């Protein structure tokens, strides 16, 4: 049952990804891309990463689609005949080759949630790994039950501060470019 669901999810994600690439109408492409993001967010859930799933659903499927749609509404929309773009056979071959190389690594990956997975080892040669440290100590040290939050804000707070700065700088750039008038959108 789970395998069938997962297979259906993968088929859904792959077909929406292909549709996003080949659809000529940008608005249709954005709509399919939102569906792709929603599928990916369910895959994150299956992979037991609810924090990432929540972000993907909100940012990927929600905000990104809206921002892309708003931008397209302000610019031209291609009205060429034909629903699909023409695909360059050489580019397709290159992408296919890359895909083959990437897929060939999949059998080497450990099973999802497998205890033998290298990333899930709490100790290596008797020494605590970062994962082991966070799992063993995060709650004792911070009193925070969601260790993802503990890592994000406490152990890797400097990175998070950098991320927030990037987001802040991005919007300052857009403000300078588009928000010139005293009241936005009013001359």
């Amino acid at each position, binding site marked *: 049952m789970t395998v069938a669901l997962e297979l259906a999810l993968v088929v859904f994600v792959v077909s929406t990804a292909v549709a996003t690439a080949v659809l000529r109408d940008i608005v249709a492409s954005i709509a399919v891309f939102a569906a792709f993001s929603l599928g990916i967010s369910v895959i994150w859930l299956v992979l037991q990463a609810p924090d990432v799933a929540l972000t993907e659903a909100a940012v990927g499927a929600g905000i990104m689609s809206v921002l892309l749609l708003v931008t397209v509404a302000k610019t031209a929309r291609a009205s060429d005949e034909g629903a699909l773009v023409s695909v360059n056979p050489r580019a397709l071959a290159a992408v296919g080759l890359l895909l083959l190389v990437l897929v060939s690594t999949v059998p080497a990956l450990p099973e999802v949630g497998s205890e033998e997975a290298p990333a899930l080892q709490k100790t290596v040669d008797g020494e605590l790994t970062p994962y082991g440290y966070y799992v063993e100590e995060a709650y004792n040290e911070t009193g*925070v039950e969601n260790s993802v939050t503990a890592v994000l804000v406490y152990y890797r*707070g400097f990175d998070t501060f950098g991320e927030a700065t990037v987001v802040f700088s991005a919007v300052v750039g857009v403000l300078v470019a*588009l928000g010139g008038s005293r009241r*936005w959108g009013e001359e």
Partner: protein
Amino acid sequence: MRRTYFESPIVMTTVRLVAPFALTYGAFVTLHGAESPGGGFQGGVVVAATVITVAFAFGVRPTVDWVDERVVVGVFAGGMLAFGAVTVGTVLLGGAVLQVDLLPVSIKYGIEAVEVFIGAIVAGVVTSLFFLLSEGGDGE
């Protein structure tokens, strides 16, 4: 520019009903990030998405006027300043970056506070991006 707003009583009523719950959920995700999946980034995006939903129902221009862009800029600039103050403050107090246990609150509440600042930054930034992209520019 093409006309992009169509007034619909069904959409307006639905949004009127859903928006308070969505805002509450955004606050919950931000404040409850220590115990459950989520945090400032996710909660902030949910809050911004609520504002965008309101804009879809009632039109972007009235929403910009209602929210007031100075508030939006104040929210993300204030969040950034507060986050920066905590980051620099913990170093000035002799600790590591964001070593929030140096603050006069428990670590957990220190982390929650930072999550709230992140939420403010993300909510303000995403709302600004939406407002600017749809209403900014050359004042069409």
